[in-house]
């Protein structure tokens, strides 16, 4: 009996041996398609998410986020917390320890000096660093020895996992970027296009806005990974062509952001060559209500400012009625399919911050009509409601995008059913989101009654996101229309909650405050009308294993774990 078990055990061990001794580079080549091509591999000079994603194959931070939104260590030995003493009890400092023996892809050792240099690089006043917000509140960084990094904050920071955590804030090699500080950042093309990193891959060739050619990093800390010897990240085309390249022709193993309409999703998913992966993060498509008057009768500099409250939308009954008339499930079915779900929350995730708010999910046309009647808006001869000689009409603007135009058409139908005259407008995305103070069509200027777009927040903590709706963040001529409180919502009670949250460390209490603030903006005041919780939709080939879609970090976050399914 013993011999038999021993022989069986030996046979099993031999069967599993190949998997256990999987070699670096054994699985050959992997092809990835980012239809928005990466323009640079330096996330600090990036012009979009695609750059951060591609760079995350090469550059890493001390820690990152996993698919559940938890902080996991990458270059650090472990994640510092208040319990293990890594975070100071008064929340003004955090101490990270690097793993021993870490090497850059060129063989030189990784030291704490690299981390300090990266902070100096991104906070340089002339550098134009795109990720400067990750280092907000950092007053200084000490490097007592080569493996210890102590970050000091100017005020207690309940969420210290900002600097050096996640794909948007990796560590650069100080030796490589030494001459690239400040205004010299854009002269360092070689460095920006071929950063030396600690990630599973290193760059062999980069054709900007076209292709990144990578090979396995010989100095990667796990000798058995990555399973792929070479990788290509190609760019160009659109979401549909990208989905087709994975799901129908099998030319690519992974395609990022294949946002295609539900019928196409269904048609392609049946092919059997690939699967669609979807994951939900914090991206919410919403309608913002303008609390101020955008009328063109007012002078420039007076339009859409707090000096003139909105004549129609200042009434909460009207705002509520407009929200009640919308059938969010129909919007999801038509626009996003599996990649979206209806929501009433501005902050739909992480779970602990999601408020129990489902009141808006059922459409109620009759209820909306009743509310408008109660508010004094009486239907006129043409079906459009009137009050004191003014017609109930709204100008509804959004960016040029087929799904958004479909939404506009549907919502216009519902609003006209309840007697609201709706005029639709769409503006090219590069103008709408451009933030140009001279243009009347930016979403900050908000020269319309309602507008629709999507927004999200970086990382897992909604505090800076919710803080956007404070009274002093209202865009106006005084601050060149650079403000994030688009609705011009101003409530001292809300501001007080924001201040309270910035001083609260205990996670349970923070979650409670976040939920309260979310409710104040959505169901209590109807100033922000969330529509769809938009998830990420990407396509992966059935022959590619180990892929886990992560909406909290980059989609390439675990490329070292990918392998070819045999």
């Amino acid at each position: 009996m013993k011999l038999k078990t021993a022989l069986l055990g030996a046979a099993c061990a031999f069967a599993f041996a190949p998997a256990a001794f999987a070699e670096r580079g054994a699985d050959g080549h992997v092809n990835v398609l980012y239809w928005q091509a990466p323009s640079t591999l330096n996330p600090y000079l990036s012009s979009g998410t695609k750059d951060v994603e591609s760079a995350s194959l090469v550059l890493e931070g001390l820690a990152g986020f996993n698919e559940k939104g938890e902080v996991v260590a990458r270059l650090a030995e472990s994640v510092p917390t208040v319990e293990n003493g890594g975070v100071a009890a008064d929340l003004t400092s955090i101490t990270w320890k690097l793993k021993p023996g870490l090497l850059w892809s060129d063989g030189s050792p990784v030291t704490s000096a690299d981390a300090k240099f990266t902070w100096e690089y991104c906070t340089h006043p002339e550098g134009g660093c795109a990720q400067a917000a990750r280092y907000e509140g950092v007053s200084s960084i000490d490097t007592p020895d080569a493996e210890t990094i102590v970050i000091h904050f100017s005020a207690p920071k309940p969420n210290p996992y900002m600097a050096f955590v996640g794909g948007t804030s990796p560590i650069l090699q100080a030796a490589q970027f030494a001459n690239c500080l400040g205004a010299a950042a854009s002269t360092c093309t070689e460095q920006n296009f071929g950063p030396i990193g600690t990630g599973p891959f290193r760059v062999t060739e980069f054709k900007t806005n076209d292709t990144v050619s990578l090979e396995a990093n010989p100095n990667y800390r796990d000798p058995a990974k990555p399973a792929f010897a070479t990788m290509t990240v190609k760019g160009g085309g659109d979401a549909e062509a990208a989905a087709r390249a994975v799901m129908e022709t099998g030319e690519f193993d992974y395609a990022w952001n294949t946002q295609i309409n539900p019928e196409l999703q269904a048609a392609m998913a049946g092919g059997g060559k690939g699967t669609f992966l979807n994951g939900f993060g914090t991206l919410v498509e919403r309608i913002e209500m303008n609390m101020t008057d955008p009328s063109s009768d007012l002078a420039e500099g007076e339009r859409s400012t707090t000096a003139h409250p909105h004549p129609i939308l200042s009434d909460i009954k009207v705002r509520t009625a407009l929200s009640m008339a919308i059938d969010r499930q129909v919007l999801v079915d038509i626009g996003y399919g599996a990649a979206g779900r209806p929501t009433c929350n501005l902050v739909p995730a992480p779970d602990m911050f999601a408020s129990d708010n489902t009141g808006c999910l059922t459409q109620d046309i009759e209820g909306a009509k009743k509310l408008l009647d109660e508010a004094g808006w009486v239907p006129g001869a043409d079906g459009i409601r009137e009050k004191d000689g003014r017609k109930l009409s709204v100008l509804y603007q959004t960016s040029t995008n087929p799904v958004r135009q479909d939404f506009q058409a549907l919502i216009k139908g519902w609003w006209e059913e309840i007697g609201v005259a709706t005029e639709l407008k769409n503006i090219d995305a590069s103008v709408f989101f451009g933030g140009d103070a001279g243009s009347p069509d930016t979403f900050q200027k908000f020269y319309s009654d309602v507008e629709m777009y999507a927004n999200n927040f970086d990382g897992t903590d909604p505090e800076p996101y919710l803080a956007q709706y404070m009274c002093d963040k209202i865009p106006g001529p005084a601050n060149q229309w650079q403000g994030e409180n688009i609705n011009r919502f101003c409530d001292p009670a809300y501001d007080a909650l924001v201040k309270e949250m910035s001083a609260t460390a205990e996670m349970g209490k923070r979650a409670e405050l976040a939920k309260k603030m979310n409710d104040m903006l959505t169901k209590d005041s109807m100033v922000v009308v969330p529509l769809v919780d938009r998830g990420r939709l990407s396509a992966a080939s059935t022959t590619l294993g180990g892929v886990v879609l992560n909406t909290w970090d980059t989609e390439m976050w675990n490329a070292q774990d990918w392998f070819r399914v045999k």
Partner: protein
Amino acid sequence: MLTYTLRRLLLAIPTLLLISLVIFLLVDLAPGSPASEIPLTVPPEVRAKILEALGVNEPLHIRYLLWLKQFFYVEPLNGIDWLFGTDLAGDMQRIISYQTRSPVFPLIGQRLPQTLTVIGTAYLVGVMIALPIGIYSAYKQYSLFDQFGTMFAMIGFSVPTFFTGTVFIIVFGVWLGWFPTKYDTTLKVTDWASLIKQLRQMAMPVMVLGLANAAAISRYMRSSMLENMKQDYVRTARAKGMSERTVVLKHVLRNSMIPVVTIIALGIPSIFGGAIITENLFGVNGIGAALIGAIHGNDLPMVQTLAFIFAILIVTFNLIADVLYGLLDPRIRYD
């Protein structure tokens, strides 16, 4: 002839300067900002700093004069440095793209091979198909071949490339699987196998564009041939006892080619402009794709530089076409 050429060249200089100013004003005054592609998660103060670092906030005339200096002085110096290994340019600031924060000219240089290979080949293929079709259609006017040739030209003219391209992708890429749908720009042709691969990935874009080009040129060829076939010298040549082949391909063709050659020469700048739609559809990532990407991202230096280069090419090839016309046809003399 020489004085004509010199006069045209001298006139071209103020024309090009005016063109550069108009392009600059158009792109600059158009709404939109390079900050539009930066995600909304980046707060406004950081965006303002990024724009400051890009140099977007300088006054209009400063930026225009700086661009002129960079284009006509700094970039040629850099070109000489690259060719001959000298260091004349030193640290002078080059034209920097807003999207990639890297110099514009190396980007154009990187993109040129794909555009010339794919779009250039498509143009060549188009011409090679069009000429025989045009000649034979004119020779056998109203025959079945002529009717098919006309139909082919109508389809090539009327059906847009984004439609034919998509149809080809679905038929040849998805259903038949003969050709790849995405162009691999890193493919280096070193041996027979890689050459086959390169030809396979070029096949579809070349077919799509070749069809569109051939349609136009075949009609010009046909009408030019028809005009010449009715001339008296053709009757004389036949009376002299020359074979049909000699009459058509030696006498008539040479005279008919004159307008067609000039039209082909005028079409060459469009190769460099890249076929924007086809490049985007097949992922060829050449100059056309670079231009459209730069426009979307409000990348003013890139758009400005590319548009100005196209203007130079168009002016140059216009001049070449005119001179060629004069060279080929002794009856034309400019003064």
